[in-house]
């Protein structure tokens, strides 16, 4: 739900990182916070619990400069991925304009990735949003673990599991090294702002 403040000439939008528990949503945001100092316009606020798990959300306010005289303000959130925080996840998703779905490349998390994507679809639907229509970008995270001694899925397999029908832009990434992190967010912002343009034209 982008908010257009005509008087202040400001557009506010909301981007949410979604994905199964421990897939690296918070790590993504931490990297953005460190690497994009210029665009970050406030502190990163995290509400987490035992074992660094996100309990309510992480929040990061960003500013992207101006487009046609409008100041673009972005609120970036991560949801808590643990299954039991379902209602909080839904709450954080409210009013979302663009989604980054982070999946975990560890083979043991294959099913959890798929369940989380379903959960996203379900929660969006409850807000009357189709997962096929919302600006959505996928990130296959923890690629740095490929080549180490743990079973890691191939990008192709993850695409088949998660992106066969959606066919959204996707990025291999490593939130820990920062590889692919900026590209993922930029693409999501691009799609989100594009969809505003369309909305303005059609409405």
């Amino acid at each position, binding site marked *: 739900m982008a908010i257009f403040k005509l008087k202040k000439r400001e557009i506010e939008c909301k981007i949410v990182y979604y994905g199964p528990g421990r897939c690296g949503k918070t790590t993504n945001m931490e990297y953005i916070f460190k690497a994009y100092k210029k665009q970050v316009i406030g502190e990163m606020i995290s509400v987490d619990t035992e074992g660094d798990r996100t309990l309510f959300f992480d929040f990061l306010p960003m500013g992207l400069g101006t487009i046609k005289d409008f100041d673009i303000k972005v609120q970036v959130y991560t949801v808590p991925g643990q299954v039991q925080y*379902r*209602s909080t996840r839904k*709450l954080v998703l409210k009013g979302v304009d663009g989604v980054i779905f982070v999946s975990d490349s560890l083979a043991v998390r294959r099913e959890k990735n798929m369940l989380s994507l379903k959960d996203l679809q379900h929660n969006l639907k409850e807000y009357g949003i189709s997962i096929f229509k919302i600006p959505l970008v996928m990130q296959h995270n923890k690629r740095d673990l490929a080549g180490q001694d743990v079973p890691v899925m191939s990008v192709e397999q993850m695409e088949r599991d998660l992106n066969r029908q959606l066919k959204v832009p996707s990025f291999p990434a490593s939130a820990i090294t920062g590889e692919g992190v900026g590209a993922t967010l930029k693409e999501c912002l691009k799609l989100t702002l594009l969809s505003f343009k369309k909305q303005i034209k059609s409405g």
Partner: protein
Amino acid sequence: MVHMNIARKIKTLLQEAELYHSQGLLDEAMVKYNNATEIIQSNEKIKSRQNLIDNISKKILALKGDIIKIEKAPKKPEVSAKVQDLIKKMFSFSPDKDDDAKALDGAIALAKFGQFKRAILEFNELLKKDSLRVVAAKSMLRCHMALSSVNEAVAQYEQWLSDDIFSTNQLDKLRVFFESILTKEGIEKTLPRRKTPADNIESEMEMVGVDGVQVKVPEIEDYETLDINSIGITMDSGPQEGQVVEFKVRFQLGNVVSLLLPGRDKDLIENFKAGDVFNDIQYYSTVALFNASGIVTSVKEIKVGPRRGDYCVDIEVELN
């Protein structure tokens, strides 16, 4: 040769377990440690077998410790005022709403995030607004109940009786609402009413008109209209396996229902773990009976009061 393979297999399992543990993937780590232990136990030829098993046991113990810590962590702790302010500001949507409606949204968001004490303060402020008074009051009572402070809820209601911010008609609504919540808690209590002096009646009549506007009460959760009285769960283990066991709903906040399980019924309690999903729950509400799934969001032992030792199980209704 077989031996070499087994040694390598064990080594990989342990490496995997370590990595999963370090990433907070605790169940996955546990599976790998258990796998490794099984292999070692079934291969008597392995060198310093007991040593290995002892080492793994230690790791499993540490892992269990972490799992327990996570299970025990409070699910909706009070957070800092800074975070509460953020919640209030960021989770009141609808830019076209007026400031009062936004303030109500903000207070409701605080309650949804379990910030009941702060929410009570916010709702209390909203009592000043004619159009929000009853809604805010109901929400305040709910928050007190969610904090398990029945006495405070009652005291608050009694305070309102003697204040003059509510009309008698509004107080009646509050009483009926509050009694129904108390009944669900298993508390049978007849609440006092305001004594109406006869000369007040006229002004009361006027208030009724105002009140008509407030019939549609904004809700804490979308499912609130479904007042769930009891639920039936098909047990998948324990002595009652396969049977539908009916539970009285003790309290409902939005789409989360709380059940009370007697502490002595250990077998039954064993069936409920946070994160468990029951796919086929029958929900009996005042208006309908429906089937839906539900997820256990918390299992807590009650530490004080008359129900000490009993368990409170929260289940979130999932309508599909």
